[in-house]
Structures are given as C-alpha cells and as structure tokens.
C-alpha cells in the first residue's frame, strides 16, 4: 500500500476493485465502512459478484471478470474528456500524459460498457465521483493481479490514481491488499527470484557485491525461476529437487493436476510445515516446523508496518523453529550461518537493507509503529510513499489496451469460473479447517451460481453438481444466489475435497507470472 490502513478513514472517495475486502481483509473492511458510514466517503465497488461491500457502496460496477482495463480506461476517458483530471499533478509529477490521453480516447464509456457489461452512464458517474473527490483511494487485491493481464491491470490502476493526483497524500493512494500475514515481508526479504532484500536486483553487481561480502560467498547473477516457472521446470525435469517451507502448492497452485505431476516428477522433495499438508504427503522428507505462536520475529503487514511476533507456547513434540532448521541444513551443507536468533537476524537484515535500516526488535519492543522505508534508527518510518517524487523521479503513465482473458466462455464451456476466499476460511484451509467452530458454520465448499444459470441448467441449491474445465473436474454442492451475475460461477479454493484449483487456468501473466485464477471457462453438470 502506498498509504496506511489508518489513512483509509480519511478518504473522500474509495474505489474497491478486485477485492472482497470484508471477507478477505475484514479489518481493512472496517476502515472502509467507517469512512463511508461516518466520514462521508463515497464508495465505488467494481466487482462481478455482489459482495458484502456492495451494501455500503454508492455505486456498484458489476463488470465481467477480466475486463478491468476496459473499465478503468473508460473511467479515464471520462475524466480526461470532462477535464476532471489533476492538471497540476500530471504536469509537475508525471510523464506520458499525451500517450495515455490518446489511448483512452478510444475507450468511450459506450465502448467500455460493451466490453464490461457495465452501463455507460454508471461508468461516467463513477469516474466523476472518483475524480471530484479531494482525496480518493484505490484498494485492490487478487481480483486485479490474478489475471494473464494482471500487470496491465495494476498499471492501469496506477494510471487512474496519478491522473487524478491521488498519490503521495493522505486519504488516497494505490493500495494493494496482501493476502497473507507476511507476504509483504517475504517480498521485502528477497524471497523472490530476481531481487535481494529491499527489492534490489540480483543482476546489480554493486548490490551483489555487498551481499557477497556480508555472506562470504560468490552469488549467482542470473534471476531464478518464479514459483509458477519452478513447477513447469519440475514437470519438464529441469528442476530436480525442491525445498518447500510453509507452502501448499498442492492446493494453492492453478491447475492442481499439473502441480501434482510436477512435484511427483522431482527426484527429491523436502517439505517443512506444521501439518502434513497435501504437498507434504508427496515429500521424501517432512520437517516439523513452528507456528506463529511458537517463535520470535516480525511480520510486515500490507501497509508496510513491521510488527513483532512473540513466542507464546512451546513447540509440540520434537518440532523445531524454522530458523534453526534452515541453519542446521545449511551447516550440514558446509555453510555456517552463525547465530540465527531472530533479533540478531533482524540486525543483519537492517545492515543490508536500506528500507529496514532503522528497524530492530529492541525498537519495535518499545511499542512504536514503523512503516518502511525506515533508513536509520532515528527515522520514524514512512506512512505515505511518493509524497515528493516517485522511485524513478516522475511518474510514468503507461497506457494499456484491453486484452481478453486467456480463456473465454465458449459453447463447450459456457460459464466463467472465478475463485476466491470466504470470510470463514483461510487460503488452503490448513489452519482454519482445524477450527471446530468454523467447521460448524462453514463445513464445506459450494459453487455459487446465478438463479438464471441455475434454472437453465436445472441446478438446485443444496444438490451436488459437477463443475469441469479443460484442466479437470470436481463434485461440489451448488448454492443458487442472486449475488452472482448471469454467466459467472464462483468457487472458494479452501476445500481439499472440492479443490477449486483443480479447475483453474495455469496460464500466467507474462511479466508477474501470476496465474489467471480469476477467469476459467467452465461448465456445470447436474448429477
């Protein structure tokens, strides 16, 4: 997030696109509700399903999955045509306005309406509401990124925010919500194939040298494989061994049959986890690790707020803390990591990472709130990014054309399948499905289908149906609901017995390598 969670309450307009905030990020959902209910904020929700946030919205744009670029370009068309953009911001802080204006000229609300299914007048009104607000925030999540056009979507979101001068000030910003407790931190820490900590490229010789000196070894200069590419390489036999820590690709990857084939093709698989997950079942060695309640450390929240994690209970049985396990394997492979006490490791991170330069456990234990970047121990942190300039200096408008999803509904697979979370469950269900109360309220997954499609297909609520795509099929209970638009079905991906990702498309975005979880062509058969 360029801004913070506290900051959301100050917004005068919020566009939520591709985020079912009240279910996937409930506490951020509270901030949005407060802004709307108590602070006179206008809420625009762009979302194919009628999510709970729609009850609080001034405007609900029900666009078809995978048409975000067309919708946002349509809004920008109106904003430029009606002169509602922030001329001063665009002139002083951005490059490439003319190119943007030329491209979005083609996206009249009428044309955007044709692509998205949203009425042209609604696009106009939403554009005006957003552009006319003193400060307007955009909040998005995986509904924007999990597309073959995910990068295009993100860039277009940024274009809209810059065009309306909503960067670098309170109550505004581009605010992606990170889906896991420490996905922000894992990225910050360089658990990515192309960057070291603090997003510094492995290809940069100076950066590499710094790490080589600190670690005392020579480091590879070629970027590695992304998670999705690893699976492809494993299937082909190019990756021969994998070490998987606290991840469950056998539930979370798109196209699970492919993931299974890939993992089974490995010569050696080590899984380090707290449960015998679907992935661990395929492993050659399984190492029992620690949950968040059993270790010290830090998590970085979605708004770059670094916070302490503290040990509350002892590890079960012979399970060990993750840092010790990694250090042990390392030692046995001939590299001594030395003292891996979390507070000491944070000091090492701080010494090698400008963003985290002023962060230490001691400082966090004083109870202060720090959002990175925090370059030194005196620095209070940076709640709002890009207040004076962007990372590259001037913001760069990067106009993007609408491209349809990799798979569209056709006569054989006439429905669009989209996936996501429900309030009760979390990700692959490893944790929440072991909670008794949650199992009572939400015992199993359901496929959501519109009354229109249900009637056409003879589907009834509570009855089992078969949902299939080109990748596979699952049997699952149907839930007929007016919250779904005609032609779209939704399956949450938490449930192993009806794993939605058996169905999803593993086609990826060319830049981010994120699979298109949100759009697959599917069909429903009554059993």
């Amino acid at each position, binding site marked *: 997030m360029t801004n913070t969670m506290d900051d959301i309450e100050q917004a005068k307009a919020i566009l939520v696109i591709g985020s079912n905030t*009240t279910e996937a990020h409930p*506490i951020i959902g509270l901030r949005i509700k407060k802004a709307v209910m*108590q602070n006179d904020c206008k809420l625009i929700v762009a979302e194919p399903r009628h999510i709970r946030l729609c009850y609080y919205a001034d405007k609900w744009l029900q666009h078809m999955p995978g048409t975000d670029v067309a919708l946002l370009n349509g809004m920008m068309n109106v904003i430029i045509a009606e002169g509602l953009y922030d001329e001063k911001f665009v002139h002083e802080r951005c490059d490439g306005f003319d190119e943007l204006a030329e491209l979005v000229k083609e996206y009249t609300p009428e044309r955007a309406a044709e692509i998205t299914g949203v009425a042209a007048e609604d696009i106009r009104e939403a554009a005006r509401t957003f552009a006319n607000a003193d400060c307007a925030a955009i909040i998005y999540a995986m509904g924007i990124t999990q597309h073959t056009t995910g990068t295009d979507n993100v860039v277009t979101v940024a274009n809209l925010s810059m065009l309306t001068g909503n960067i670098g000030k309170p109550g505004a910003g581009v605010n992606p919500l*990170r*889906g896991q407790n*420490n996905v922000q931190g894992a990225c910050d820490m360089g658990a990515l194939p192309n960057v070291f900590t603090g997003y510094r490229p492995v290809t940069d010789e100076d950066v590499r040298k710094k790490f080589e000196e600190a670690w005392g070894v020579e480091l590879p200069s070629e970027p590695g494989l992304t998670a999705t590419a690893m699976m492809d390489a494993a299937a082909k036999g190019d990756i021969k061994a994998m070490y998987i820590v606290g991840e469950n690709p056998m539930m979370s990857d798109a196209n699970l049959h492919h993931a299974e084939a890939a993992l089974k093709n490995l010569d050696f698989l080590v899984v380090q986890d707290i*449960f015998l997950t679907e992935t661990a079942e395929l492993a050659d060695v*399984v190492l029992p690790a620690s949950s968040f309640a059993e270790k010290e450390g830090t998590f970085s929240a979605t708004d770059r707020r670094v*916070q302490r994690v*503290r040990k509350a209970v002892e590890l079960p049985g012979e399970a060990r803390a993750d840092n010790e396990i990694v250090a042990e394997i390392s030692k046995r492979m001939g590299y001594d990591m030395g003292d891996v006490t979390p507070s000491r490791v944070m000091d090492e991170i701080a010494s090698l990472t400008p963003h985290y330069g002023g962060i230490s456990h001691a400082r966090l234990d004083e109870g202060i709130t720090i959002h990175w970047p925090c370059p030194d121990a005196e620095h209070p942190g940076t709640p709002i990014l890009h207040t004076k300039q962007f990372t590259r200096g001037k913001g760069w408008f990067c106009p993007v054309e609408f491209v349809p999803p990799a798979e569209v509904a056709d006569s054989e697979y006439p429905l669009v399948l989209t996936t996501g979370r429900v309030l009760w469950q979390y990700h692959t269900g490893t944790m929440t499905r072991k909670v008794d109360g949650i199992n009572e309220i939400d015992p199993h997954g359901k496929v959501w289908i519109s009354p229109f499609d249900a009637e056409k297909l003879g589907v009834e609520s509570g009855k089992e149906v078969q949902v299939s795509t080109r990748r596979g099929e699952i049997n699952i209970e149907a839930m007929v609901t007016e919250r779904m638009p005609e032609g779209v079905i939704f399956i949450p991906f938490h449930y192993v017995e009806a794993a939605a990702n058996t169905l999803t498309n593993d086609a990826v975005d060319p830049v981010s390598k994120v699979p298109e979880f949100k759009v697959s062509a599917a069909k429903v058969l009554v059993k």
Partner: protein
Amino acid sequence: MEQINVEIDGTSCTGPKGSTILDIAKANDIYIPTLCYDPRMEPYGACRLCLVEVEGARGLLPACYAEATDGMVVKTTTEKLERIRKTLVELLLSDHDMECQGCAKSGRCELQELANRYGITESPFVGEKHEYVEHVENPFVMRDYNKCIMCGRCIRICREVQGVGVYDFINRGFKAIPGTPYDKPMQETPCEFCGQCISTCPTGSLKAKPYEGDGRVAARDMLRNACAFFKMSEEDMMEALGLQGWKVRTTCAYCGCGCQLDLHVIDNKVVEVTSPKMVGSGQGNLCVKGRFGYDFIASDERLRKPLVRKGKKLVETSWDEALDLVASKLSGIKKKSGADSIAVLSSARATNEDNYLIQKFTRAVVGTNNVDHCARL
C-alpha cells in the same frame, strides 16, 4: 492542531480542541469511571457513571460526551459524584447475580471493578430479577442476559464499527434485552461471528464459547478471580505466583492486516485470544479467524517428528537422519545437475527473519536464485 487547557481536579491538563472531558482526563492519567464507553465507538452517555462537575455548568455533565472547552474547571471525584456513582452501581447490581466467583468474566468485569471500588457486596435495592436461559446456540457467542446491564455496547459496536447491526433492543420495559431480530439464533442473522460484541461487553453477559469450558480455562478463571479479590493486575499476579507467559502480545497470522493480538497462555496452551484496544492497525477489532481461529496451534494433527519416505510410506525418524538426508541429497543434486536444478519455496506465513534466512540459504548455500513464495497464488 489547536490545544486547549482544562483544569481537572486541580491539575492543569492540555489536549486538542474538540476532545471530550474524558479524552483529556485519560490522556492525563486521571481516572473517571465508565461503563458504556469504548474508545472504538462514538460516545453514548447512557450509564451516567462518568458524570463530572464543571464549574459554571448548570448540572452534572457526562465526561464521555461533553466537549472540553478552554479554561474549563472540572471535578471528577466529589462526595456528591461518588454517592451518585455508588447508587448507580447499586441499581445495576439489584438485578445482577453477585456470585462473581462462578463467572468467567470475573477479574476483567467492569461492573465488578466498580462494585469493588464502591465497596458494594450486596445491593440495597431488592426487586424482581431476570431468569433467562443462556443462549448457546452457535459455536462462538454465548449470551447470558442475566448479566446484561443494557449499556448497548454490543448493539453499537455491531452497528457502528462492524457495520452489520445484528443486535438491537428487543422487547419492552423490564423484559428489554439487546437481542437478535425476533430472538433468532445468530446463525440465522447476518452475524459474521467477529466477536466484537464479546470484546466490548463490560460484564459476563457475552462470552466466547471457544474459550470456555476446558480445565485450563478453569485455571484462567481462578487466576482472574484471584486478581479481582486481591485487586491485582493479571501480570502482577502471575509474577507474584512465579508463573510466566500469561499474556503475549503478537501479530495475527492470518491475512495481511497485521492486527495485534494478546495470546493468553496457561499451561503451554493458548486459552484465549484478545486484541488490545486502540493499538495497531486493527485498534482492538478482530474478525472470526483472528479471534477464534486457533484450534490449529494445539491440534493433534501437528507434526511432532521428522518424517522420511520409506517406500510408499512416510515414517518417523530422528532429526539427525532427516537433516543429513536433506543436506546430502541437495548437495548431491547440486553437484550432479547444478545449483539451478534446485528450487526453494519460502513462506508468506513465516517471519521476516525466517524468510531472510531461507533466501540466504538458497543464494549463498545452494547457489541459485530459484527462490520464491506464494505471493502470486
């Protein structure tokens, strides 16, 4: 922001303009009793316990509601105020079971604290008492209206903070309670089971079902009872008893909101999870997972020993064997097929420190940049 000066109990206090008397008193560590107040919500002014005397004002003013003005002179603890407060608490207790020892909220009950403060062991007012059957129809929220003081905090937090509005006062007069529409089971309402109502309830009226009824919980309740009896904080009591790890402040392990949690621990088990009010991004608010989703920590299904594949089966083994096998296999594959034939998936669930070590291991020890995690999934 413009600052104003207020004299409270003879002490000169400052605070931002627009603050209530209570805000300024709290900021200056001056205690004013409250019952219907929660900083997460708009002031309500129902319980009248926070009444204060203000020089020149026509009557007594509720500190939670009354805006402080520059030069105001406030008295929080006069004989008259304390007499009114005592009577108010006695009235509330006239329809309240005083067997605090059997109540799970004992030691954390705001009403009990006030009864202790005013030395009330029995209410002088005798009248009809409610005899409701406790509502236990759903897995998360237990409702015992015999202990309800009608402060409306559950109604307000559900409406104002959660934006849902499951509760409202139902029935009339003596029979009024903060109930669900038509007194329906909570599963049949739009309830999200966030437990926010439990987090704000000042008495034992609303309780978290997952955190009641086990032997360790009984120990927790005993401890809190002792705290109430000796008027000690939980931390001081634990220290006096030589026990450790009672309440551990940490960060939620579910989504990326980063809500702050207090894990209450007894006998190496998490017996309750709460969130500190007005701290961190969540400000004391939690969702159903963040408040109740912790059975997994002590689950029987947790992995307790390393496993190694023998034929088709995974069998238990020693750490030494497991670690040696991992190290030799990875080293062997690296030697034979090159470092780039090995890939590591780190975890968005693990800490920063763990993630740092895992990417360091991949780059410095294995010698490849094939490291990623599930940011994309």
